[in-house]
């Protein structure tokens, strides 16, 4: 006699859909509150949202697949230039700008990823830095295209969906950025739950084991690098569109480093971590820099030390840690 094959209890559909939507819902609620509470800080809030998109994209690489790079600004910068050039020369439609920037970011990620993902550790870090440096140099030399050190200025963007004009207080810009973030979060949540997402976590856990079960590890790494690059390009495009400016500092090393710090602060491998880390970093930066413009890095450094030593999985792991301590007590 054979027992019927018991299959594991399946999580309900509603539960699954909620899980996918939850980060976006949190972001939307947070954005509405912020919009009402700080109506005169919308440009700063928009910068936070754009940075969140960039850090979330970096989480796909570092958090999910476990690939540490210090060159995420490369794709961000290319997206920014692409959106700027498109608006100045071809079309002022904002969404076409995002699309073009995603293609640019993805292309740069693909070309550089083909080389850098063949390496590991320090070599990979160095190549990712080098790629960004080369791009910065190209942007500063190609004056005819990029405006050199002066950058692109006077970028104007047409109305969103042909309906909503970008206003000078930045309300439309803020709402636009929040919506893009919400869509990207849904996309990332679906990706993380997919077979591809599981494979990324497998690569993070043990690349040698992934190979031993037949996974083309290198190809999967290149794919996630391209996806993350496309999202980083979108973040760069948003920055160009809402500020109307693109300068060579989009390729600054410090941007790539900040992105990594924000993710580690919040907790790599969790989308919420990327969001919380970015929020904390940007707010602390903003507040501390207005009190003491020269020593704000001290505060960030201290926080980073605390997190690395006390909460190695980032701030998102804090509630879990506290409840565990509570139960033990």
């Amino acid at each position, binding site marked *: 006699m054979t027992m019927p*094959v*018991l*299959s*594991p209890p*399946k999580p309900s559909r509603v539960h*699954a859909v909620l899980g996918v939507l939850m980060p976006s819902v949190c972001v939307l609620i947070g954005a509405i509150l912020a919009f009402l509470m700080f109506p005169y800080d919308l440009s700063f809030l928009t910068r936070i949202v754009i940075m969140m998109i960039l850090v979330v994209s970096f989480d796909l690489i570092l958090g999910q697949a476990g690939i540490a790079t210090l060159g995420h600004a490369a794709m961000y910068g290319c997206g920014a230039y692409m959106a700027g050039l498109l608006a100045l020369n071809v079309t002022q439609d904002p969404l076409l700008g995002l699309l073009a920037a995603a293609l640019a970011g993805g292309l740069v990620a693909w070309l550089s990823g083909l080389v850098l993902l063949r390496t590991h550790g320090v070599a990979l870090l160095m190549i990712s830095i080098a790629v960004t440096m080369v791009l910065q140099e190209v942007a500063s030399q190609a004056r005819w295209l990029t405006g050199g050190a002066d950058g692109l200025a006077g970028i104007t963007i047409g109305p969103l969906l042909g309906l909503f004009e970008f206003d000078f207080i930045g309300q439309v810009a803020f709402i636009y950025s929040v919506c893009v973030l919400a869509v990207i979060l849904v996309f990332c949540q*679906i*990706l993380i*739950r*997919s*077979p*591809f*997402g*599981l*494979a990324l*976590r*497998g690569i*993070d*856990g*043990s690349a*040698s*084991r*992934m*190979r*031993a*079960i*037949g*996974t*083309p*590890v290198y190809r*999967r790494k290149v*794919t996630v690098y391209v996806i993350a690059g496309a999202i980083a390009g979108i973040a760069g495009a948003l920055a160009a569109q809402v500020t109307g400016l693109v300068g060579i500092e989009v390729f600054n090393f410090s941007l790539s480093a900040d992105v990594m710090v924000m993710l580690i602060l919040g907790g790599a491998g969790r989308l919420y971590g990327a969001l919380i880390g970015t929020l904390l970093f940007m707010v602390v930066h903003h507040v501390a820099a207005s009190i003491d413009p020269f020593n704000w890095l001290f505060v960030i450094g201290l926080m980073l030390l605390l997190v690395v030593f006390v909460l190695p999985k980032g701030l998102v792991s804090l509630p879990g840690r506290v409840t565990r301590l509570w139960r033990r007590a």
Partner: protein
Amino acid sequence: MGDGLVIAGLCKNFGGIQVAQDLTLTLSQGSRTALIGPNGAGKTTFASLLTGILKPTSGKIVLNGHDIGSLNEAARVKAGVAKTFQITNLFRDLTVRENLRLPILEREGRTHHTFRRADGWPDIEAEIFRLLQDLDIQSLADRPVGGLAYGQQRLVELALTLAVKPKVLILDEPAAGVPSTESHLIVEAIKRLPPDLSVLIIEHDMQLVFEVADRIIVLVNGAILMEGTPAEVVANTQVRELYLGAGHV
């Protein structure tokens, strides 16, 4: 085409040291071969050469008429050669179920999917469940592998490689570190393997070897010392001296 895995003149040097010296042998379809030899004889190296983790200095590897020697590791697994790791190599942060899901998704060519849930294929979930049942580890299904006892991890290690459904299965000391109360589970699992599968077992535990192998290869210093039935190997005085040690003579 069922002539199995044919290995001819396989050599490997690490610096000046020859760890595989002109290894020539055939693992015919359905055979149960044991590879024994003292520590450092080159057993793991040989297995790694077969699965493509290491590149041989020279030699040929042919599976059912196809030269697989030039394939990379992932492609060789897809061609049908898979091995377990002597030192457990698992996805420690994932649950047992997720660990097993990965090789099956990969085998079915589904890991590139980005818009479907990884646990969304009922056939795969059912197969995971059967694998868990076969090794009697259903109760561990939703625990992270990193938190399991070592013996349990060895069972997951075996399950992960079985999930690949290889034609040639290489087990690198499958029972090493498994408490004796659980090692029978591994022996049973090996005995239950599909009869048309070629199995190469690297093992120090002679009792296990005699229980499952119909042929034994003795490897010493990277070279095959002898090859024969268990009875022939036990009778060989050279093997007794070199490998089984004075206690067995």
